[in-house]
């Protein structure tokens, strides 16, 4: 009898074997489970550029890597108030916001067992000042950092800086205190931790660029603050993969994205969101070096009147965006809700302003945009409205931020799409209004009147600073320094069974160390 050749059996056998492996264990085991003594897994969307607090750049990803291992001097809460941490008391001395004092907590040790003192804190801040990180500009002129024998650290500035409590908090590099051993081995700071925080990085369990594992610090000064036996920070870059991971039970919380927030809600995840950054177009070339029309404030105002912010924001961000004209976010000084009415959608007025400035037929100009954070989409939407009033913008769009920075610093582009985190006016002004060329002010544009208003606001007492900051930002807005369309939310997703996750307008960075099991 002829035997039939088992033609299909090989393929079927392979497939069956493959799928059988899927049943080796039942279901997808969660990589973490909530509850005291258990593990926490959080998904971040990028690996740390460096674990060195002195050179880190501030974003929610980098902050999470540092917060676990480095206790801050001051803690900023979800309501924006500042409370003691490694500094038991702190505040400005005298008036003018030029001198600041912190009293350092006694009896604290670094993870390596060495004592944390005022001297080590001063050394850490001095290291961060000189390490070359971009946040050093936020300290401005505050270069005098000294320790006293009474356990105080004194910060002296040659000009006013009203934001020092924030800069010494867990949301900025200068608050993370580095041990003397870490400062002595600067190269090791990039890949290991040398702090006095709740956890230490376990390099053996860590795979660079994939996941970072933290275990409890045996020398931590407040053992009640340690909630987990292990904290894993897992890197997943793709927003859809982030959502799939947390839906599949592989993580407890994740940094989300407005594009997947609705899907996260539908999947039963808890979505925390709060206004985080503004997006629009930065009109760099106020002297008209590359695009002569931009030298005229009427042209810049026309570009503002030409766009329908509400339509753009709704189309791109849905319920996770709010139309705005302003550069700062509502919780910071310098914001005034009435300024959102300064530039209503009025293309007729826009064309009239262009005509008054001598461009009745419009003009064309090149424009740059990075594709991250929806910046390129916002830019293209704005370009669409500008085209209707005769302003033709030719877009160069980049996938890599490095290319975007290189292009804008080349000064070939008179304008570029931007996304800028909500910050106090003092920090914002270092990037946007001061002469040091950077990606937000590559042409080093300044305005004497604006400088005067900003200096007054920086030196003022808190009760007067708000109104002065609003005055400064109103002036810049009236001069058309930018065309903002949207205030965009940051989002975090969590599974049930976690508490301490907070994302509010007054603090958009959830403090990872405050997360704990429970509902």
């Amino acid at each position, binding site marked *: 009898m002829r035997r039939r050749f088992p033609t299909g059996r090989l393929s079927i056998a392979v497939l069956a074997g493959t799928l059988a492996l899927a049943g080796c264990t039942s279901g997808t085991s969660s990589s973490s489970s909530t509850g005291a003594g258990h593990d926490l897994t959080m998904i971040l969307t990028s690996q740390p550029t460096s674990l060195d607090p002195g050179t880190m750049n501030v974003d929610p990803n980098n902050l999470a890597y540092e917060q676990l291992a480095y206790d801050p001097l001051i803690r900023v809460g979800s309501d924006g108030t500042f409370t003691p941490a490694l500094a038991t008391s702190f505040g400005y001395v005298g008036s003018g916001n030029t001198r600041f004092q912190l009293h350092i907590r006694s009896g604290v040790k670094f993870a390596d067992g060495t004592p944390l003192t005022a001297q080590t804190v001063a050394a850490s801040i001095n290291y961060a000042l000189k390490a070359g990180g971009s946040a050093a500009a936020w300290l401005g002129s505050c270069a005098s950092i000294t320790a006293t024998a009474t356990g105080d650290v004194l910060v002296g500035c040659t000009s006013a800086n009203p934001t020092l409590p924030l800069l010494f908090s867990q949301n900025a590099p200068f608050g993370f205190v580095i041990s003397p051993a870490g400062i002595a081995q600067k190269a090791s700071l990039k890949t290991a931790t040398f702090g006095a925080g709740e956890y230490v990085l376990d390099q053996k369990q860590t795979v660079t660029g994939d996941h970072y594992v933290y275990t409890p610090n045996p020398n931590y000064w407040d053992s009640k603050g340690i909630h987990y036996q292990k904290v894993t920070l897992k890197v997943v870059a793709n927003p859809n993969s982030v959502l799939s991971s947390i839906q599949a039970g592989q993580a407890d919380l994740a940094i989300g994205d407005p594009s997947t927030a609705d899907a996260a809600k539908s999947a039963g995840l808890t979505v925390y969101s709060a206004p985080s950054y503004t997006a629009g177009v930065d009109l760099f070339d106020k002297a008209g070096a590359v695009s002569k029309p931009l030298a005229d404030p009427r042209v810049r105002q026309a570009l503002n009147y030409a766009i329908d912010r509400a339509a753009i924001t709704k189309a791109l961000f849905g319920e996770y965006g709010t139309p705005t004209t302003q550069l700062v976010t509502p919780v910071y000084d310098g914001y005034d809700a009435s300024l959102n009415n300064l530039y209503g959608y009025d293309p007729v007025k826009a064309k009239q302003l262009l005509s008054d400035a001598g461009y009745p037929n419009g003009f064309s100009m090149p424009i740059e945009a990075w594709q991250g954070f929806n910046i390129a989409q916002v830019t293209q939407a704005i370009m669409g409205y500008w085209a209707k009033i005769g302003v033709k913008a030719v877009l160069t769009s980049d996938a890599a*931020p*490095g290319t975007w920075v290189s292009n804008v610093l080349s000064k070939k582009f008179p304008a570029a799409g931007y996304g800028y985190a909500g910050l106090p006016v003092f920090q914002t002004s270092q990037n946007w209004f001061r002469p040091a060329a950077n990606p937000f002010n590559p042409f080093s544009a300044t305005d004497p009147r604006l400088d005067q208003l900003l200096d007054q606001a920086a030196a003022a007492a808190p009760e007067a600073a708000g109104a002065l900051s609003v005055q400064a930002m109103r002036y810049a807005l009236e001069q058309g320094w930018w065309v903002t369309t949207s205030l965009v939310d940051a989002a975090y997703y969590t599974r049930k069974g976690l508490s301490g996750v907070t994302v509010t307008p007054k603090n958009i960075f959830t403090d990872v160390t405050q997360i704990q099991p429970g509902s």
Partner: protein
Amino acid sequence: MRRLLVSVPLLFLVTFLTFLLVSLLPGSPSVTILGPTASQDQYHQLDLQLGLDQPLWTRYGHWLAGAVRGDFGSSLITGDPVARILDERLPVTLSLILGATVLATALGIGLGILSALRAGRRGGIADVLSLVGSAIPNFWLALVLVAAFSVSWRLLPATGYTSLAQGLGPWARSLILPWIALALGGSALIAKQTRDAFATALAMDFVVVLQANGFSRRSVLYRHVLRNAAIPISTSIGIVFVGLLSGSVLIETVFAAPGLGSATVAATNQHDLPVIQGAVVYFTLMVVLMNLLVDLSYGWLNPRVRLP
């Protein structure tokens, strides 16, 4: 040995071209390190510290002098030794590629033989399955597989990689979906080659002679026909392997698998040239090795073409 020596100028050419092309790209790793809010001066100072102001030839020469000793330098971003970064990731990519190749081969050969032997409906089904496999984009398939097997049915993980050291079962579970997503397209090419080669071999006179001499059909097909058809199949397996290497870049990103592909994508976005160079060397060596294995297989399959 001669074939291995030929790879040396190939490596030199590939690494130099990569160095040149990446150096010509606008941007710098300083932006990744300092972020977008640093001043132009700060970027410039860091570029100097990283040695990025030196001429291209000087930088390439330094890199080459280290590479021939096995030292690929350190990541400009993290400071980690490049060899350590890539050695950690190599097993992930190899697990992914080799597993997908085995799966694609098994599926492809099976479907190809079925298609060659069965005229009519069953052969047609095999043809259609092959066509579908080649038409579906692997990243789309990956997303569909994750939606079904991970999110809805919670059978398999959506992302991540579990090393073999943690057990065969967990390792395989973390790779099943990426294997399927990668293998389907490759199996189509192998199926087509198998069908054509098998049908050609089946039509040869020796088949009739063997059957007339009383050999079983199974023996004729397995030991003789398949072996005669194996050389073009072997070639297509080699081509599929190389294709899977490039496909793995996207699949590793979708599944957040810490392989060479995802490291290369991240390094390219960050202008981390030492990591890119090191990854290029690793990928080139894998392709060279695969081609060598395919050539050697010819000699094993057909002694008449055994290499000197």
